């Protein structure tokens, strides 16, 4: 399963309570759409660290990296490539 699909499934299952893929667009802002609140973002960070064996650094915790599926995928891509 791709990283994108894994993250999508996690958000759909835990915050939108549905399997319906159409319920979430990859560009939807989690915060503006009310999908996640501040603790939800924290939970997503822990999910990413567990699932993808990365460390989300302080300076990485910004909306540009974490506030949509596409942003997380791009962040993961950058992070995992940087670390070989």
């Amino acid at each position, binding site marked *: 399963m791709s990283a994108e699909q894994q993250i999508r499934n996690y958000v759909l299952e835990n915050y939108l*309570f549905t399997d319906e893929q159409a319920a979430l667009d990859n560009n939807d802002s989690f915060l503006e759409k009310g999908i996640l609140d*501040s603790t939800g973002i924290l939970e997503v*960070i822990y999910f990413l660290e567990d699932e993808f064996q990365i460390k989300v650094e302080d300076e990485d915790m910004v*909306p540009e990296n974490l506030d949509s599926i596409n942003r997380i995928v791009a962040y993961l891509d950058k992070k995992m490539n940087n670390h070989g």
Partner: protein
Amino acid sequence: MTLSLVHMLHRSVKRYPNSEALVYKAHRISYKNLWDSIIAIASFLKNDGLNQGDRVAIFVENSPEYVEAYYGILIAGGVAVGLNTAAKARDINNLIRHCDAKYLISHSTLAETGKIIQNLEKEINVILIGELAHYDIKNRLNAWDSVIRSNITSIDLKELDNANKLAAIIYTSGTTGSPKGVMLSHGNLANNMESILDYLKLQHTDSILNVLPFYYTYGNSVLHTHLAVGATCIIENNTAFPHKLLSLMVKEKVTGFSGVPSTFALLMSRIKLSEYDLSNVRYMTQAGGAMPPANILRLKNELPHIKFFVMYGQTEATARLTYLPPEKLDEKLGSIGIPIKGVNIEIRDENGNKVQENTTGEICVNGENVMMGYWNDVELTNKAIIDGWLKTGDLAHYDSDGYIYIDGRSSEMIKTGAHRISPKEIEEVVAELEEIEEVAAYGVEDEIMGQVIKLAVVLRPDSSITMKEILLHCKSNLATYKIPKYIEFMSSIPKTASGKIKRFQLQESNS
């Protein structure tokens, strides 16, 4: 005589016209420019037919527009009703109906705004910030941009000298049947602001990063106290990214920061505060529930130079009731401190008699900050205020030095983050599902949020509804912060002989 909020702001405008009052994203708004917008809004409302005491609902996130609307309404003689922007349209429409608002000021970027406007039951004048194109009700729709360019009419601030005049309604719970709207007078707001300024010693050189919603009493008081002294309020609505918040505090060289326990828990959950240059921060304040002493000590260890104020209050008391002087923090850790200036506190037993030290009773308070009552609910008001004393519902005791310690709450409200939620708000929504026979909502402890919501659910025989389907229904009908974190299916819900849910028993089974 205590000056009203508006008079205090006007004094700041005259003293510091070019100082920054508000900073929001790329906007930096001086006191003079803020005042000009406020007067334009007040003029529009007066010319448009707002009568003294008419309610104006504000469904706008923290922003300069919120502040301009709030003060404009007060100057026009109206009553400001700030509404929770995290709430769903059905709750907001219910509150607009409950307070019989004559105007609604809203922002087109909020997802619920369209639904709210479509579902307004009666003719209400809407003032919309942002894009108007999507709304097909132009006959009673005004664009904010044209409102703030209104012709200025003469404004007489003397009308605000009546301390007993209703200024604001703050809703503390939004159950369909009985929303609780706390009525605050100009005198309530002014007196509590003065008491807060007395211990925080704010000056015009101060600046605060505010993340607390203005529609709740804590954020409301942070805003007014800073504007009253000519200080700067930097508005940031997003607490999800601690690094961003702290970087902003460094960049703006803020001198103050206020939060609820979950704000500080989130800030410290993954970040070392000591790695940021917060040398300009003079003080931090905490209210909105008990902050674990371990977190207070951690904060103090990381930022030893700041004064950390533990505070306690209630919307029904305008905002603030007690504070713990920072120099007593170590000695009296866990205490909510002593009454602020102008507030009398008695801890009473169930017969109304004052208790001795180290004996638990209910906190009862008296002072110019005690609310006028609940909007349109005399019965509830008479239960809450007896002979001028407000019964807070909070249980506490004094120590031998007169410092107060909270022992528990007699109320069933769930405290999660900055929010207070009546369990009934959630139960009403879940009970709409036909397959649910009984439901009880209650708070369970959470390291970050203080409490999160748990549901006990009894299904009808042969029901096949799943947890996910219940949560999906909640997601569709409740604000995000009201969605239960846990659901437990049970065969029955514990109740008293009179049929009242035993929430404490449910809570105890989870501790």
